[in-house]
């Protein structure tokens, strides 16, 4: 008798899977109109930045007047799943694949070299071998890079306080991306009349000591995109405030963590830029191989009001004019 119950349960389960397919995120359930444009969105994981990029893309398409059947799939951080998703889109014969995050884009590239792919939230598309070069992608892939506008961020130091000369950076030595950023910061600093002093850490417990040691040597602190620093951003911010130091961050999330200010990317805007690229491919008929990869055109200044007050800065300073206060 129990066996019957189990097999009934299994049957119900299988039927419900079939029914659930009706709850998929396909926006159009009617038979496919041969003229309708189909787009497959392959997102790597659930993450506020990636979600924002997707929404920006979808809104951007609407603003450009493009009507498309969009299917959205999320790999929940699992790379083989993102590969299966890409393979499914290929099998379905979509007109374009929008891939959000590096692994999702690489999986899409592996799945097809014919269907055009537009990516977003990829920091270094050349390094990831998605494109041959930023100006001339050379294949079926192009898109938008979320590389931080570090030049704009570093400029903020002198704009807030022209006496700042030495800027400190704490970074995790085992994050390759961090070393790249430190190197880039040093190159940019030279052109801005700043000097970078860096200190490397191995574990998160090293952060308080590292910050203490660097505070003695510098006039201000810059926080790069680094997972370890991000998880202890409040520590860095508070120590800086105690020592009356200006801090500039690479991301909005740093400002939420009490870093004074950033001039950063809006993933939502980046998504919209991606939609424009999609239009050039789908409507204007351009090949992705000749569409240059774009970085964020519009950046957003965001500041932390409490930090500003704690540092005794003047809100009427030019710097803060077009800046937004961070929401709690």
């Amino acid at each position, binding site marked *: 008798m*129990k066996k019957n119950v189990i097999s009934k349960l299994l049957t119900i389960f299988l039927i419900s899977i079939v029914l659930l397919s009706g709850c998929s995120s396909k926006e159009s359930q009617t038979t496919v109109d041969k003229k309708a444009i189909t787009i497959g969105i392959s997102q790597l994981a659930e993450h506020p930045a990636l979600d924002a990029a997707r929404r920006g893309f979808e809104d951007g398409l609407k603003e450009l007047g493009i009507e498309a059947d969009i299917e959205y799939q999320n790999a929940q951080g699992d790379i083989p799943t993102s590969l299966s998703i890409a393979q499914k889109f290929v099998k379905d014969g979509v007109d374009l694949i929008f891939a959000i995050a590096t692994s999702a884009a690489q999986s899409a590239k592996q799945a097809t070299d014919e269907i055009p792919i537009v990516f977003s939230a990829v920091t270094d598309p050349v*390094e990831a*071998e998605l494109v041959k070069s930023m100006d001339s992608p050379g294949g079926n892939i192009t898109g938008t890079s979320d590389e931080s506008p570090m030049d704009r961020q570093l400029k903020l130091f002198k704009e807030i306080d022209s006496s700042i000369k030495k800027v400190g950076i704490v970074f995790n030595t085992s994050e390759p991306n961090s070393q790249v950023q430190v190197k880039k910061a040093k190159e940019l600093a030279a052109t801005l009349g700043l000097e970078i002093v860096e200190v490397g850490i191995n574990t998160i417990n090293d952060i308080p000591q590292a910050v203490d040691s660097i505070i003695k040597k510098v006039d201000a602190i810059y926080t790069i995109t680094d997972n370890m620093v991000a998880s202890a951003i409040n520590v860095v911010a508070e120590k800086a405030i105690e020592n009356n130091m200006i801090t500039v961050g690479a991301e909005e999330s740093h400002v939420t963590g009490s870093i004074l200010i950033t001039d950063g990317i809006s993933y939502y805007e980046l998504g919209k830029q991606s939609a424009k690229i999609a239009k050039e491919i789908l409507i204007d008929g351009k090949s992705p191989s000749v569409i240059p990869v774009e970085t964020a055109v519009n950046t957003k200044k965001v500041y932390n009001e409490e930090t500003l007050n704690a540092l005794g800065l003047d809100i009427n300073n030019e710097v803060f004019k077009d800046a937004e206060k961070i929401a709690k």
Partner: protein
Amino acid sequence: MNSLIITSIEQGLIFAVLAMGIFITYKILDMADLSVEGTFPFGAFIFAKLVSTGVNPFISTILAFGIGSLAGLMTAVLFIKLKIKPLLAGILTMTTLYSINLRINGKSNIPLFNFESVFDIGPALLILVVTVMAIKITLDQFLKTEIGYLLIATGDNESLVKSLGANSNKFKTIGLMLSNGLIAFSGALMAQYQGFADISMGTGIIVIGLASIIIGDTIKKDSSIFNSTTRAILGAIIYKIIGGIAIDLGLSPNDLKAISAIIVILFIAYNNLASDFLASIKNKGEKKYANNTRIIEKVLQRH
């Protein structure tokens, strides 16, 4: 639909190698080796390093097996020589491998699009079927050797191994090395299949491996036709096919993970209830027999 089944089977075959590796530690040795999450990408990164310096992809993949087995050696040394509990030893190996993986190539993501891979010589499905069969046959033969049996005995009853004059630690080490070697091999295959190696490849890999073994176990547990390696392979393939169907049906992405979990739960429940069910008929049958005997005896006594 067809091509999605094929790609699901292909991924299933790659994970079948992983499942066979996990099978050795989790089922034969009865040890929870958590280093798996670090060993899988370790194999991928070793392969990437070798193939980027010009080594033939076939040799690179096999070397990934060899070097990957060292991860098992590390776990073995930690828990045998330093007497750290196996669970913790595995975690320590995994965290060490994270740093090692980053240092091998200096980056967390290595594209392999411009390098040769084992899948260049023919259809992926064929290559994978041949590879998995070869591994399965070798493993089966190994488990029939004296050392193979001692491996099984070590997981079953360590004091027996001692009384046979063998050192159970030696066999745990062999098991760990073999297991991690297979897992690294699987990682190298996956890197070539997806076109890149990435530090996040190992996340959640234990769940896939265990799910494959659990699903495989529901297929005729003690049948002589399907022995344990076959069941691990079938389990991995079925797991991936179910996932593939879910994606193809366009299920809401948020539900994908929940559905995988539900599938595993259903398989476990079926397994447990089915054996309980069999036990309960046996009990009922025996009670009935005893009752009948008593009735007959009573009747006979009257006469």
